[in-house]
């Protein structure tokens, strides 16, 4: 009853760390994993007298993102100070954007539970600096502060409350993840916290116009956690209301060990951030010409690439979607497809199938694939020209993966070349027919399905190396005699 009666409303605030080499307002490096406080300069430490200077690269990146989600890139946006005290916030304020963000009114499309395309609005995306980290482990009675992350550029992407389920939220987040990586503006590394989100969740009875009271779940750093935390929160709110209680507006934390959310602070305890324009920074002014230049340089985006793959390569739409989920995989596919005369769908099957399987098995990214796109293409050409069968190709691929050389070398050294000599195949067929008189009689009596048995026997006799098409043909000819 609950699922039918209640409508879920979700909005996401995604924080994508921008892949700049230096910080948003200082020249310090943004590299991850350095010794604490070795990548924090005086500006990041908030020393007396220092001033922020905007890294122009972040403006470029935000503009790219705005264009990629069909948003308005503001001709004038303003940095503001968000004031609060915390030890890992060196200045006592975070430089962010408040009233005038750099990107507004964007959108993207996801596929909903019924398989229909659904538009999700993007309210805004704004630039801000990250804070540092507090460290509690191993420090008796004290807290440590690591300011390496302080001043790392973030793009905070705020969706409209257009998402109706945890699955949609994940689909939306995945889409944003794909877009920022396509644009090369974020590495999207969720383990390192480069891509994380806060989820605003509320429920209301179907048909009610007013939104229910929402809870905000903070700092979700995996797609799985997003889904589980939202589902837990939906259940919690529905149960609470059905038991006569009321949802309170509050910030909640998701505990992945216990798979539950719990209250962090209520609205009454929430900060008054006293935002005001940062007088140390000029407004960011972006000209129409600049936007046009960035637009010209935009890479092909996932949706467009998917459509092109279907049209240009005649791929199945689902396969095109899988291949274009990552720009690196799409590029790998295209490189391989260009290097072989084999059908693109065959290339796609191998990239999605055996290649992805091998990568997963070894925990590798496509960039580290042990079989290059050109090498894969070389093997597929051998399938195409009937040197090997698809089945033998699996052996060849594994040998290539294990570093035994390219397809031709493996085929040669292992003697896997397909038998296409008709007389050799005829000899094998004759032997199989002679050895199985009973089956031959049954076949001739009309049991056509037995052709598979004969093919299997011939393939077995030829160690799988006979050309299956030829075997089929010869068998049919001889059996119909």
């Amino acid at each position, binding site marked *: 009853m609950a699922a039918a009666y209640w409508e879920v409303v979700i909005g996401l605030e995604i924080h994508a760390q921008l892949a700049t080499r230096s910080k948003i307002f200082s020249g310090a490096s943004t590299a991850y994993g350095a010794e604490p406080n070795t990548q924090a300069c005086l500006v990041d430490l908030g020393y*007396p*007298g220092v001033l922020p200077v905007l890294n122009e690269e972040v403006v470029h990146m935000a503009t790219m993102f705005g264009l990629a989600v069909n948003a308005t890139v503001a001709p004038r946006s303003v940095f503001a100070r968000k*004031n609060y005290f915390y030890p890992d916030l060196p200045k006592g304020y975070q430089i962010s954007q408040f009233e005038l963000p750099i990107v507004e009114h964007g959108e993207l499309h996801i596929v909903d539970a019924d398989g229909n395309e659904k538009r999700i609005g993007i309210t805004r995306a704004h630039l801000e600096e990250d804070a540092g980290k507090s460290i509690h482990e191993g420090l008796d009675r004290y807290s440590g502060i690591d300011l390496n992350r302080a001043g790392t550029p973030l793009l905070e992407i705020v969706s409209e409350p257009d998402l109706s389920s945890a699955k949609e939220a994940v689909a939306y987040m995945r889409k944003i993840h794909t877009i920022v990586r396509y644009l090369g503006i974020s590495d999207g590394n969720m383990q390192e916290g480069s891509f994380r989100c806060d989820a605003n969740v509320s429920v209301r009875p179907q048909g009610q116009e007013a939104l229910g009271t929402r809870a905000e779940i903070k700092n979700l750093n995996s797609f799985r956690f997003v889904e589980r935390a939202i589902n837990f929160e939906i259940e919690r709110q529905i149960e609470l209301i059905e038991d006569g209680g009321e949802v309170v507006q509050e910030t909640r934390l998701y505990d992945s060990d216990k798979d539950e959310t719990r209250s962090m602070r209520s609205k009454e305890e929430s900060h008054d951030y006293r935002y005001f324009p940062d*007088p140390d920074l000029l407004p960011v002014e972006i000209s129409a010409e600049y936007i046009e230049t960035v637009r010209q340089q935009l890479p092909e985006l996932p949706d467009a690439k998917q459509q092109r793959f279907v049209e240009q390569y005649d791929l199945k739409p689902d396969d095109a979607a899988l291949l274009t989920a990552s720009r690196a995989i799409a590029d790998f596919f295209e490189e391989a497809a260009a290097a072989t005369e084999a059908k693109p769908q065959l290339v796609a099957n191998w990239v999605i199938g055996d290649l992805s399987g091998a990568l997963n098995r070894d925990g590798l990214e496509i960039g580290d694939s042990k079989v290059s796109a050109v090498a894969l293409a070389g093997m597929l050409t051998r399938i195409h020209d009937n040197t090997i069968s698809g089945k033998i190709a699996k052996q060849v691929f594994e040998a290539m993966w294990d570093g035994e050389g390219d397809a031709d070398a493996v085929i040669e050294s292992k003697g896997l070349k397909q038998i296409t000599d008709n007389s050799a195949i005829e000899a094998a067929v004759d032997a199989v027919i002679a050895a199985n008189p009973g089956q031959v009689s049954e076949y001739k009596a009309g049991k056509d399905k037995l052709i598979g048995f004969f093919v299997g026997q011939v393939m077995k006799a030829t160690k799988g190396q006979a050309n299956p098409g030829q075997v089929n043909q010869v068998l049919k000819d001889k059996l119909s005699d």
Partner: protein
Amino acid sequence: MSSGGEQLYAQSMAELAAGLEQGDFTSVELAESLLARIGEADAKLNAFITVTVDEALAAAANADKARAAGKAGPLNGLPIIHKDIFCTRGVKTTCGSRMLDNFVAPYDATVVAKLAAAGAVVLGKSNMDEFAMGSSNETSYFGPVRNPWNLEYSPGGSSGGSSAAVAARLAPAATGTDTGGSIRQPAALTGTVGIKPTYGRVSRYGMIAFASSLDQAGVITRTAEDAARMLGVMAGFDERDSTSIDHPVPDYLGGISQSIEGLRVGIVRQHFDDGLDPKCGERVKEAIATLESLGATTVEVDMPNIDLSVPTYYVVAPAECSSNLSRFDGVRFGHRAEDADDLLELYCRSRGEGFGDEVKRRIMTGTYVLSAGYYDAYYLKAQQVRHLIADDFKKAFADVDVIAGPTSPTPAFRLGDKIDDPITMYLNDIYTIGANLAGLPGISVPCGFVDDLPVGLHLVAAHFAEETLLRCAYQYQQHTDWHKACPEDYQ
């Protein structure tokens, strides 16, 4: 050791530069003589927080070497003082506060670096109102500075250590900062020249922020000529300060000798109303008459919103200060309370102990005006009025080249007289604040005495018209002797 019979300490930068150039004395001799004078005089004046004897002598020796090698910079070997708001690598920078009593900056402010590169020799760091918040130098954690014209009186503030030191001939020039009048008012109260340039003319990098949209570095000297010499070195774009402006720096020194014939001087009625001490008003009117005798013409200009300067300022400046001073939390540098039991106590006690009353008053005011529900009524409204005031100036400068009036409503006041009455204290800056709100350059020039205390003529010009101010002040000083007057005990 003396040049033309006049003591070194009494000479202007221009005279000292000539003496050094001619080899009449060395930079080391000059530094030694002034350091000795500071040693004698400062026990009473309290103009210094730190005297940098060793550093000064080393810099002077380097300057002498540079001169011998033919590599003398434009300020080679000339002694100066830095307001203790400018970060100096390796030398304590306190900003007049207990909060930074232990703070040694690991870097030089751009102004400090530029002056050092020009060969200037820094004698020390001058006392100031705490975090530049004050008009009397009484809010300093290091005690008030005394006015060399009368030790019972304030030298003004917040750059009071700089103004007192220059007036007492402890150095020919001292840097200052001006957020609402903190260079010009102390210059007026000590009979010195103080110039606050256009906002963005001088880098703010390394200058500890009070109110970022108003703060601007400048200089206090005894002559407009020396101010031109200093400003020429200090000014210029700095890539580390986004609000500094990439605008060519003119040859200030070369420009000052031109006549002011035809200069249009604007007079604002509100600058001469009830709030002004009538005797100060007379001195200022006499000074304007002198400018007329030099070929200037006067025009009355209407500035309908100028009366709103002080209330506007006391919303904008505290708002910015409340945020700027948040970094002083006892975590990374500065004063940290001992034995705090938790984070909140660490914050409350470090800040409670580290900041003085006036700073706390402004942090609280600023926090209030930025709070949810009050932002629109105070901060936003103040920003709107700020635009109106800037527009008033803009309209005025369509018709005039400078606006002339008093720098301060009264001459120097007794220490202790106003410190318990913040509003009266705030009104000290009633004539100077407008230039900060509009980002305009302003200068105060000595123009006479009232009851044996100096009075300043205040001139404001359009953005980047520092040349006009310096020329006008220089020409005025060529025809008056007020800047040559020296407090009796410092002759």
